[in-house]
């Protein structure tokens, strides 16, 4: 296997064009082909909330070793329209190339010195083949593969799989990719960039955060999923709807987010593991039933994929603006779990854990992700669900029937055993009102206090449990001169920044609290106690993790890199910020 880019051992492609031109699909095909060739890949899309007309692009980055995010520039620009060149030419490294349609109106001065022009008859080839316009993309992919010297075979397999059952389309795309490949061989010199497949590639999957969460839910035995479409959480609905039979899951589109979460409460009350997912606006509508779950002590798993607000904001961009909202959402006070995965593996395994925590502690668990994590592709080892054993906690499927069942028994742990409704000899009363042990409404002050104390008592064991789940993850050098602190999807760029720093001779580490509530106080206190300067990285305006850390352990960050224009942080940005911190 070989992977040599212009800057380092990674190779980056940017495919751009108009919305509706199949940009993402092309990026996905290319990524999959490279992955099957044994490379690690990371792919991120950027598109406005429009079906047609806006500019879309997909950045794909590949390497022999794991890739965690996009880089700071690209080796190869695949421009399916002129706008793409205009917008991205400055991102191409010197020595890189631009593939574009011969028929375009681009003039040499639109390109940049040091960047190779690869005009290709994309439209010409497609017209000759009598194919639909979108096949231009595939021709361009052929050109790109040829320019970097990558064998066509993996791409052939990817095309066959992607369009399985649609033979004509497969034929068309196979011919297109071959025509592009040949055209480039005949007309362009190979680049310095080289990507060659491995002989014995490892089995990997290319997966988005959303798919990983969906798979985690299936792996955890979640059997009920209700949601209302909302970008960037909708792909979970699509994935589960397409796989409901395999998953044994009831999957449905509810009439609103309010309906969706109330359904999840209903299903969970009836004894089934259940989940919903949404983004900020939908989460607002869910806050009331979040409290219902808490008060009735019904396990609930909710995925919140953040996008920039306030309000509708920018549906298809990314943000980490909802952390404090998530921690305090819904009236009154109750224990909850908030967990923020940082990559696709964490999406999978933490989702599995989420269901165990929700059922064992009978609390709502919120999985807090964002568009960048939810929709970006990453290659990784196939997930292994056996790493997280299902644990449903105190769930009785039989009732001895000696004494009457009490749904809210005042136990020492605060956890009152659940039963399934339908169990012989017992009935179970759950109540949105404050209640006594049997579930009957009460306003009696002693009982009210006892119930509140009972619910909060669960926090004690929960805190301990979470300490055991490696709630704060640390990457990089043990003895670091500088620490980067971040959460969620800033993990990818931060890990890439660590690589840059290492190359620049700087020993750095990345501290990533994964469980944010209950807050891993001990671990964070320990990790932030050193003297090295610390840089906080977040994708929001007000440094919300910073506030949370301040609140819990009094640590105040002097250095902060906050980005809030909807775009993910770049590794180079972090690198620069660290250099500045170090003076």
């Amino acid at each position: 296997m070989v992977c040599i880019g212009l800057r380092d051992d990674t190779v980056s492609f940017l495919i751009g064009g108009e919305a509706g031109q199949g940009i993402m699909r092309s990026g996905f095909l290319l990524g999959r082909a490279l992955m099957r060739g044994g490379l690690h890949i990371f792919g991120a899309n950027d598109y406005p909330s429009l079906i047609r007309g806006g500019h879309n692009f997909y950045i794909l980055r590949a390497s022999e070793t794991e890739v965690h995010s996009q880089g700071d520039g690209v080796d190869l620009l695949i421009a399916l329209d002129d706008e793409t060149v205009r917008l991205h030419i400055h991102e191409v490294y010197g020595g890189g190339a631009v593939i574009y349609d011969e028929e375009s109106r681009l003039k040499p001065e639109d390109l940049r010195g040091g960047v190779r022009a690869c005009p290709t008859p994309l439209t010409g080839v497609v017209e000759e083949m009598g194919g639909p316009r979108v096949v231009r993309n595939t021709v361009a992919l052929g050109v790109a593969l040829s320019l970097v010297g990558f064998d066509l075979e993996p791409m052939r397999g990817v095309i066959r799989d992607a369009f399985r059952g649609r033979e004509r389309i497969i034929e068309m795309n196979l011919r297109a990719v071959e025509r592009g490949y040949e055209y480039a061989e005949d007309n362009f010199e190979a680049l310095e960039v080289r990507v060659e497949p491995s002989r014995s590639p490892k089995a990997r999957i290319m997966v988005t955060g959303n798919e990983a969460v969906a798979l985690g839910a299936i792996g955890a035995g979640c059997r009920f999923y209700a949601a209302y479409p909302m970008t960037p959480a909708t792909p979970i609905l699509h994935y589960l709807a397409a796989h409901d039979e395999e998953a044994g899951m009831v999957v449905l589109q509810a009439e609103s987010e309010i309906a969706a979460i109330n359904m999840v409460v209903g299903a969970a009350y009836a004894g089934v593991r259940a989940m919903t997912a949404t983004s900020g606006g939908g989460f607002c509508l869910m806050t009331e039933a979040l409290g219902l779950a808490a008060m009735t002590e019904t396990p609930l798993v909710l995925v919140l994929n953040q996008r920039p607000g306030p309000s509708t904001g920018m549906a298809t961009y990314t943000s980490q603006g909802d952390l404090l909202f998530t921690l305090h959402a819904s009236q009154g006070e109750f224990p909850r779990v908030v967990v923020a995965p940082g990559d696709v593996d964490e999406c999978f395994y933490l989702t599995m854990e989420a269901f165990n925590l929700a059922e064992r502690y009978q609390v709502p668990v919120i999985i807090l992700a964002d568009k960048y994590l939810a929709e970006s592709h990453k290659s990784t080892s196939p997930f292994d669900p056996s790493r997280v054993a299902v644990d449903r906690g105190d769930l009785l499927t039989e009732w001895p029937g000696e004494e009457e069942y009490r749904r809210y028994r005042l136990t020492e742990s605060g956890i009152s055993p659940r039963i399934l409704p339908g169990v012989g000899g017992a009935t179970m009363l759950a109540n949105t009102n404050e209640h006594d042990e049997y579930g009957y409404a009460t306003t009696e002050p002693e009982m009210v206090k006892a119930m509140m104390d009972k619910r909060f008592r669960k926090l004690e064991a929960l805190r301990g449990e979470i300490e055991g789940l490696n709630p704060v993850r640390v990457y990089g050098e043990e003895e670091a001169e500088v620490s980067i602190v971040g959460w969620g999807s800033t993990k990818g760029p931060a890990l890439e920044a660590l690589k840059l720093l290492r190359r620049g001779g700087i020993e750095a580490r990345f501290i990533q609290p994964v469980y944010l509530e209950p807050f891993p106080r001990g671990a964070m206190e320990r990790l932030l106690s050193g003297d090295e300067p610390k840089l906080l990285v977040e994708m929001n305006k007000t440094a919300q993790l910073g506030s949370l850390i301040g609140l819990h352990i009094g640590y105040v960050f002097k250095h902060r890199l906050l980005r809030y224009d909807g775009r993910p942080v770049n590794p180079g940005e972090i690198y620069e910020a660290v250099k500045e911190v170090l003076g």
Partner: protein
Amino acid sequence: MTTMEELSTPAKITWCPGCGNFAILTAVKRAIVELGLRREEVVAVTGIGCHGRMTNYINVNGIHVLHGRVLPVATAIKLANHGLTVLGFAGDGDAYSIGIGHLSHTARRNVDIKYIVHNNLVYALTTGQTSPTSELGFRTRSTPRGSYEQPINPLLHALASRASFIARGFAGDVRHLTMLLKEAMRHRGFALIDVLQPCMVWNRVNTYEWYRERVYKLEEEGHDPGDLEGAYRKAVEWGDRIPIGILYRVERPPYREHFPPLREGPLALQPLEKADLTPLLEELS
């Protein structure tokens, strides 16, 4: 078999003397007893309002939920364990103001749950405001000059939403109401039973007497519940004559039958073993 006593709970009943809710409670218990259901086979879901205390007073499984959200919770309980008989109880504010959207959607899905609306034409628990079923000119603390909004007609709404079973009961006639509830519980699909429920405190207009002078039984006048046009005609009757009984009934597959995983029995009783991820992971490789 279950007895009326077994269906009682120790919770003290706090409805006002004479409240129509007593009759509904009795009718529901009787229907359960007469249908021979076991307590643990039944789930009651209640919204917020005076009616909401039903879950405190009837010893079946219960979940007292948010204002207006009885239907989504009940829907999912049914999908999660379709062996259970799921009864939803809501107030008119609950069902037809904040929650009316769920009615349209649950009806068109034909979820196999029974929706019993305690329709007292007023917001009672919140001490007397106008409700969407309040009559024009009805004076409350939120409408001191009288309501200026055309009332919602629940039966018409249910018809427009393709509910497969629609009935109206009257809390002044427990026997008849029991009959309606039993029919609804036998129906395979969504059933709305709107119950005219006098409120002794906040509605001094639509009293037992007021209703007694007006209600008549559809079945006694030869109404055919299979006749959709006839149902529309009867649904709009409200004034000197108010029909009670089964307005409309049609057979249509209940929602749950569309979900493949439910073919293997109730979800909640299926073993929670992990699905095999291998083929799914292969798709991604």
